[in-house]
């Protein structure tokens, strides 16, 4: 059937494009601000475009903080967290979706409930646990508490639930082991979800700054988002530094996003059974 380019369609696309571009405006503001000097940002007559573009903000972030060290720390911790979380979420989501056991309901609701408590309240108890484990001021204190994601388990469960049982039964009859069924059949089916979860998890791990700030003392162990708050004193605000730090923090995440996007798209087109 031939599809004609209707006015409605064109209007919709145009509307979406405009809306999409508007989403980007605050970013432009951030990038433009990062190129201004602090005095210019603070002055009463600030313009949109920087009058005297300067890299002073970037310079301060890169030289006054061990930024590349922090980049490395962030990369390691975020990657490990993402990889482990993807695995545990997928397999737990699969178990919750396709298996029956008596504790299931209780466990699931506990999972859900754990997401409903504000961080301020669990922060000190978590710190005390981490201290008793002896890993305060180590990178493992960033990784270990974040290995299991209730959000991830819930998300995978919702998507795996809709997988037809016959598919799994057929593999069982063929004599495939349970883990093999999981790895070879379930996982490929939920690629788009895993890609999305991967991006979300990486971003959350990357951008987390309050917990690392509390649990890490040594400046060489810190992670990248700390740069955002590190130059903020009680009275002195270094705006251009904060903006520059923000830009620098985002770049690796953008890269990861674009990598995962490709997987995301591939996953969508490879949905075999559909």
């Amino acid at each position, binding site marked *: 059937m031939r599809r004609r380019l209707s006015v409605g369609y064109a209007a919709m696309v145009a509307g979406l494009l405009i809306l999409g571009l508007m989403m980007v405006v605050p970013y432009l503001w951030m990038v433009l601000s990062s190129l201004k000097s*602090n*005095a210019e940002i*603070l*002055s*009463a007559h600030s313009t949109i475009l920087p009058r005297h573009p300067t890299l002073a903000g970037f310079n301060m972030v890169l030289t006054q903080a061990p930024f590349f060290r922090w980049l490395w720390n962030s990369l390691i911790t975020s990657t490990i967290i993402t990889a482990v979380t993807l695995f545990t979420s997928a397999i737990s989501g699969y178990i919750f979706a*396709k*298996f*029956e*056991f*008596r*504790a*299931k309901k*209780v*466990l699931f609701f506990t999972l859900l409930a754990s997401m409903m408590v504000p961080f301020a309240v669990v*922060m*000190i*108890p978590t*710190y*005390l*646990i981490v*201290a*008793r484990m002896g890993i*305060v*001021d180590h990178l493992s204190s960033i990784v270990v508490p974040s290995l299991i994601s209730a959000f991830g388990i819930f998300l995978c469960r919702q998507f795996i639930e809709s997988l037809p*049982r016959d598919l799994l039964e057929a593999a069982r009859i063929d004599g495939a082991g349970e883990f093999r069924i999981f790895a070879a059949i379930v996982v490929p089916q939920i690629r788009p979800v895993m890609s999305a979860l991967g991006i979300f998890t990486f971003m959350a791990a990357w951008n987390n700054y*309050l917990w690392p*700030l*509390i*649990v890490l*003392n*040594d*400046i060489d162990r810190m992670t990248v988002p700390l740069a955002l*708050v*590190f*130059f*903020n*004193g*009680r*009275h*002195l*605000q270094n705006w251009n530094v904060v903006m520059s730090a923000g830009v620098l923090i985002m770049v690796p995440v953008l890269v990861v996003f674009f990598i995962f996007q490709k997987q995301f798209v591939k996953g969508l087109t490879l949905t075999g059974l559909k």
Partner: protein
Amino acid sequence: MIRCGRGLKMQKKHTASCSSQLARIAHTAFATFAVVAMALIVTSFAAAGGQTEVTKPAVPSGPVTLTWWGDSDFEDANMQIADGFNNANQNITIKYQGFPYDAYIPKLQAAFAARQAPDAAQVFGSWMPNYEKNGLLAAIPNAQEYQNRFYAPTTAGYTYKGVLYGLPHEFNIENGGVLTYPAMFKAKGLAYPPKSWDEIVKDGQALTVMSGNLFKVRGFDFINTDSVMFLFLANILQQGATYWTSDGHVNFTSPQAVKAMQFEVDLINKYHLTDLSEVANTDIDSSDTFFKGGAAMSMRGPWVIAVGQQQYKLTDFGYAPLPSFVPGNPPSFAAESGWGEVVATQTKYKEAAWKFLDYMMSKPIEEQFNLATYTVPADKAIAQDPAFAEKVPLMKTSLNMLQYGRPLGLVWDRDFLSNAIYEGYQTMVAKKETVEEGLKKIQDSVNTMIDQHTN
């Protein structure tokens, strides 16, 4: 036999019979980890109470490394101190780490709670009463000698039940001075600086510039959590009254307090010198408004001078003294204890820590710190030294005021106090309650908070 998981309906009906074996094992697994979890909880609660163990004072023979935490605002000054000390002492190495103010508060708490505290820490005096009450700080040896050196308000926060637990770097004065643009006064032919509050009000009205309903230039700005509170308290003190009762509670409903608060409300509602439109803007302080040309007079502590000079690179502003509300009475004001140094009881290296504190409190190092951070000295000798004043001419106003300062008092949670007054002030200005009602509310909530801390 019915198969498991054939369909939703079947699943619901036959779950029990189909997967009983599965369930039993999973049930045991769940039960086990539930028990383990509960056991952990119980032991943790039990163990959480054991914070009073005093660390055995070790006698360090070999080289010692002290961890020292500070505020990242003072990064350069602190690095200077650490380097200086390290160079002069071969056996002791100071490992310094600075933290941003907002995160420093919870971080310090968590560290002390989990026995991960630094050996020495640069802290803000008002945070300390809770630490002192729980025996987390080490008492200063030779306390008497230090007490005499410093102004009373600076050591008040570091003192608990008569024992001194910390040494101050600065006099945290938020009163007594006002940012001004002398040129504005000159342009309008007004005498500078204003010598009475009547003059301030009149000058403020003359210097106010409106654009419709919005302020282009505020005549007299003071809208921030500190100034609103300290202006109020100073007014009470200058009338010769106090805001403390004999049993450690606050009294904000005395006639002097009502008069003081009414005056502040009048500054907005009657004299129209400023308004509350910038209240919610957390990234702009009233001093920023001033430096952008948005105010003719702006009340703030002397630390703003450094901001104006270093961040905004301005040279045409002044810092004039604020007169007393009651002509003839001295311009008394309340001040809390500011940044200073403490040593944790948990430390293994008390001797080394005291050596470090002694170094920091030596006159040349204290002066070095005050100059580098543009803080008002806590040390009377430095503050009254004319040579020091010459190096920071705009600070002279504040230096001359220090003698009138009184300790704020043991308020336990000064942020609670300033928030209560600030929020109450906004409601009173918005006429949602009268001054008497508003003050009673503030008084009650602050006293409840004090009771929480003292039982």
